[in-house]
């Protein structure tokens, strides 16, 4: 039985429209949704988790796509970010009944068991839409493969970046002659900058999301080449380097250089209302700050993460498309789905401009137009510096490692836990997670 709304058979349409009892309608439309079969178009069901300001960019792009392809009916649904989204994706796919295409974080690809729950994508069908392997960064492309099959199409790279308020920074004297932030080397150097701007703001130096501490931890830990590897029931991490990263959090908060508590909204608000001259947050907030600039004025720019340990590595991820497993694909829907994905890649300039993400599709990022795009050009280096989460089934965006460590880091920022205690607790939690049987393999 096809699990898709059958192509709009005239029979079913007439049956429903003439007011035949609802029950009779079911027999006629097979088992798909009654309303789904009525539009007379090929329906593409897209599931995403983009509820932030990048979601608005995506919706605008979808409208354009709809205009260009009037025969396609794109039904996009946004679910709550993190666990609720991934739960629904896996539950739907386990019955062959999720959307036709979904956005995920590439770091979560293995955790959604692509071998059993996703449908592989062939290089041929991508090429038919003009998308080639050479259009992507080789490292990113490789990460889309699991067991030799291509399961994901990368959309972008996104990462933790550093936004700065130019007005405040200028007053504090930390801008270079070209009006960009002075580069610093080492933690102390950057702390001096924070102290300087704190004197101007009177409140904080930098703002950050204290509930998303994993991102900052992983960036700083990786800057000093910290590794986290997982074996069978065992794991290895570098305690000294981890402690050093957690101490940065503690000291920053202790000295009042960052807030002791700020959730996503508060974290951005601190930057908008000038309580902090910097905000270390994902590039996806760009649209929000741009809108704020238009409404109330906020002269800001963005740069890569400050260099703490000899480089500017940062934590990040890739949004990508996957095709959840279908019991069987209607060839028309499949083609429409790939067409949609290809269209989105080719138009990902908008995605970069509005969402702040660095498009994965090289013809876009290599275009002169994109190279000149500000402030994106200023942090274009993140693509080389981005550090993906460790490779284990409970790791990745919004996964359990992220959730549990972040709630610990939140205590560190709140000065309710010392770095030593935090490290012990983190190791304990990881041990608990490791003790769980791996449900994916």
């Amino acid at each position, binding site marked *: 039985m096809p699990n898709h709304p059958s192509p709009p058979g005239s029979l079913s349409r007439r049956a429903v429209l003439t007011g035949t009892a609802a029950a009779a*309608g079911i027999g006629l439309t097979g*088992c*798909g*949704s009654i309303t789904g079969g009525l539009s007379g178009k090929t329906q593409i069901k897209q599931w995403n988790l983009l509820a932030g300001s990048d979601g608005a960019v995506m919706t605008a792009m979808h409208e354009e796509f709809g205009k260009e392809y009037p025969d396609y009916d794109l039904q996009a649904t*946004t679910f709550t970010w993190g666990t609720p989204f991934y739960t629904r994706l896996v*539950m739907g796919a386990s*019955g062959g009944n*999720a959307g036709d295409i979904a956005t995920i974080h590439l770091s979560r690809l293995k955790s959604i068991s692509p071998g059993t729950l996703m449908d592989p994508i062939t290089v041929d069908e991508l090429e038919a839409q003009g998308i080639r392997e050479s259009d992507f960064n080789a490292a990113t492309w490789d990460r889309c493969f699991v067991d030799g099959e291509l399961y994901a199409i990368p959309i972008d790279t996104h990462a933790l970046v550093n936004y700065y308020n130019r007005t405040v920074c200028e007053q504090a004297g930390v801008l270079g002659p070209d009006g960009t932030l002075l580069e610093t080397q080492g933690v102390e150097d950057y702390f001096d900058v924070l102290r300087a701007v704190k004197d101007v703001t009177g409140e904080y130096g930098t703002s950050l999301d204290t509930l998303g501490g994993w991102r900052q931890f992983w960036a700083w830990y990786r800057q000093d080449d910290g590794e986290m590897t997982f074996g069978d029931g065992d794991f290895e991490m570098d305690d000294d380097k981890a402690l050093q990263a957690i101490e940065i959090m503690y000291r920053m908060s202790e000295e009042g250089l960052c807030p002791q508590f700020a959730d996503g909204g508060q974290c951005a608000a601190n930057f908008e209302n000038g309580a902090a001259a910097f905000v270390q947050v994902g590039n996806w907030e760009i649209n929000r700050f741009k809108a704020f600039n238009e409404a109330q004025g906020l002269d800001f720019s963005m740069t890569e993460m400050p260099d703490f340990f000899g480089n500017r590595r940062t934590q990040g991820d890739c949004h990508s498309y996957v095709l959840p497993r279908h019991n069987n694909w209607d060839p028309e829907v499949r083609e429409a789905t790939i067409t949609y994905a290809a269209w989105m890649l080719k138009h990902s300039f908008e995605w970069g401009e509005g969402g702040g993400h660095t498009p994965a599709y090289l013809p876009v990022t290599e275009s002169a137009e994109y190279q000149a795009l500000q402030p994106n050009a200023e942090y274009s280096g993140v693509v080389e510096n981005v550090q993906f989460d460790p490779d284990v089934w409970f790791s990745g965006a919004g996964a359990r490692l992220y959730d549990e460590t972040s709630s610990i880091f939140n205590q560190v920022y709140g000065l309710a836990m010392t770095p030593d205690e935090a490290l012990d607790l983190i190791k304990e939690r990881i041990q608990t997670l490791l003790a769980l049987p791996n449900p994916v393999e």
Partner: protein
Amino acid sequence: MTAVQEKTTPEARPQAAPKRRFKKPTVGAVIVYVSAAALALMWLVPLLWALSTSLKTETEASLGQDIHWLPENWSLEGYRTLFERGDHLTWMLNSTIVSTIVTVLTLVLCVTAAYGFSRFDFPAKNVIFAAIIAGLMVPSQALIIPLFDLVNDLKLAGTYWGLALPQVVAPVMVFILKRFFDAIPRDYEEAAKLDGAGHLRILWNVILPLSGPIMAAVGIFTFIGSWNNFLWPLLVATDPSMMTLPVGLGVVAGGYGLFYAQNMAAAILGALPLLIVFMIFQKQIVRGVAGVGLK
């Protein structure tokens, strides 16, 4: 009860005491009426508040505004955006379809089974009946894990059948109907049998016409139960196009963001269908609930 037919004269108005056969001081009656009315109003406050919010503009409805009951600017904005989004209607249609399948199938299956148990003797009858009675005690919520897996294996996930069929199994209805059929005297059937009627004809022409109220009660309760079922459709209706009203409102409602007027318009529209059913069938529903307690 005939109390209401007895018109009270205008002079008697202060003495609003109901006609009881035993005397009660008027003051007591007034207290009863006033407190009952006050409680009833209190009970309706959340629904009325939702209605009031839904008729405001988004600006007026948003948090931080003064709390006032009558909208300053009456507006159907919330309802309009809701209809433009369209998914609310889809969900309502889905709910209607699923609840109808469940109700019709439950009635057909339970009536035939109850008739079979009531009127025939057949091999293993007692064993089967005992097994079904044991089912009264099996909590379907504790079966969600294997049931989800089963429906996936049957390739029914995300279909109307997958939503409806697992809700059809209602041993309690078989039990109730059997007891009712047991109580119907057999004389009518004997007469029909002499006329050469088959078993199905007897069920249809003799038994069912005598079972109107009980069928109505079973039907209405099955329909309400299925319409308001949340957990099962939450699991199997993964795509929004297949969601029932309670699930769609609960899961996709996040997409409404902070639009309270729209949110409450959705709530009001979501409450309306069954409130109307309730108004129409109040008598049957009340009697049905009473039946649970008095049987």
